[in-house]
C-alpha cells in the first residue's frame, strides 16, 4: 500500500517520489503481467529454441494483423502459440512428431485454428506421396491410437503447411499432440522430412482461454 492521506490513492496532495517507490512499482509490474498471463511465476526455459527456428516461426506469426478493435470488444483473451516438435520414434519412412501445449487456465484451451509447418527435402524433379496420421492417447490406455489420417502430395522441396483437423485440435486442447508423417517410397535412404535446428517442424495454433463446462450436482 502506498502512503496516502486522502480518501482516494490517486488524489494525494504530496508529489509522488518515483525513485523511492521504484522497487515497489517493479514488483507491481511483474505481478500484473504474470497475473494477466495466468502464470504463477515466470517460466524457466528448459529447452532453448535455436535462433533459426525462432526466426522461421516469427515470420509465420507476423502474418496480416487483425484489427485491434475486434479484440477490444471481445473480452476473451486470444493467444497464438508456436510449439516446436520433438521427434520421437522415427525411421527413414516414418517421422513421429510430438507437440506439447500448455494448459493455459484451469479451463484449458479452445483451439480456433492450427497448422502444421514442416520442411521437405526432395531430389530435384521428384514428387512425394505421404500420409499424415493423428495419434492420441485414450483414457486408461498407455498406447497411442490412430484417430485419423490424411493423404498428402508434396511436389517440391521447401516449407509446407497443413491445416489440422478437429481431432488434432482436440489433442492440442488436451495439451499433447502426436503426428506421424509416413512417406510411401521405399527407395529412400534418408528421411525427406528435415528436423535440424533451422528446419524444425512446428505447429502454429490460434487459441482462446477456454472455459471447462461445469458439472452441476443434481
Amino acid at each position, binding site marked *: 500500500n502506498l502512503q496516502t492521506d*486522502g*480518501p*482516494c490513492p*490517486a*488524489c*494525494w*496532495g504530496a*508529489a*509522488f517520489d*518515483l525513485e523511492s517507490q521504484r522497487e515497489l*512499482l*517493479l514488483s*507491481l*509490474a*511483474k505481478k*500484473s*503481467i504474470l497475473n*494477466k*498471463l495466468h502464470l504463477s511465476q*515466470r*517460466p*524457466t*526455459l*528448459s*529447452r*532453448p*529454441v535455436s535462433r533459426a527456428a*525462432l526466426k522461421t*516461426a*516469427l515470420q509465420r*506469426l507476423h502474418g496480416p494483423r487483425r484489427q*485491434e478493435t475486434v*479484440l*477490444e470488444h471481445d*473480452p476473451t*483473451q*486470444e*493467444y*497464438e*502459440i*508456436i*510449439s*516446436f516438435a520433438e521427434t520421437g520414434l522415427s525411421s527413414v519412412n516414418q517421422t513421429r512428431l510430438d507437440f*506439447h*501445449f*500448455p494448459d493455459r487456465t484451469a479451463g484449458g484451451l479452445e483451439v480456433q485454428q492450427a497448422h502444421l509447418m514442416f520442411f521437405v527435402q526432395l531430389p530435384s524433379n521428384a514428387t512425394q506421396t505421404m500420409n499424415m496420421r493423428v495419434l492420441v492417447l485414450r483414457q486408461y490406455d498407455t498406447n497411442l491410437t490412430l484417430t485419423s489420417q490424411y493423404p498428402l502430395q508434396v511436389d517440391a522441396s521447401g516449407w509446407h503447411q497443413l491445416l489440422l483437423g478437429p481431432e488434432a485440435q482436440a489433442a492440442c486442447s488436451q495439451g499433447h499432440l502426436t503426428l506421424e508423417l509416413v512417406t510411401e517410397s521405399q527407395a529412400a535412404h534418408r528421411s525427406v522430412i528435415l528436423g535440424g535446428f533451422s528446419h524444425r517442424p512446428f505447429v502454429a495454433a490460434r487459441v482462446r482461454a477456454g472455459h471447462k463446462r461445469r458439472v452441476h450436482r443434481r
Partner: protein
Amino acid sequence: GINCQGGSRMCCRQEFFVDFREIGWHDWIIQPEGYAMNFCTGQCPLHVAGMPGISASFHTAVFNLLKANTAAGTTIGGSCCVPTARRPLSLLYYDRDSNIVKTDIPDMVVEACGCS
C-alpha cells in the same frame, strides 16, 4: 491528457518504464523490451472534476472555477485522477515448454489521465 512534469500537482499521467532486462525477464520475453506501466496521479480540484483529459481547456477551467466557488459546500464526494485512455500490451514470450506464445493483454498501458 497531461503528462506529469516538474512540480505540477494537477491530475496527470506519470510515465514509468519497466525494462525487462533490468528485472531479468529478457530471456523469456522475446518482445517487447519493456513495459510502459504509466499511472495517474495528482489532484482533482472541484473546478476540473468531471473533465477527463484534453477537454479541460483553460477557459473551461476558469469558468468552472467560478461555478465551483459559487457552488462550494453543495457538492459531495471527491474526484479522482484516473485513466481515460488505455491500450493493449502485445507480448511474445516462451512458456515453460519452450513454445512461443503471442498475445495482446487488453488495457495494460495508460495513454491518458483525467478527473473522474
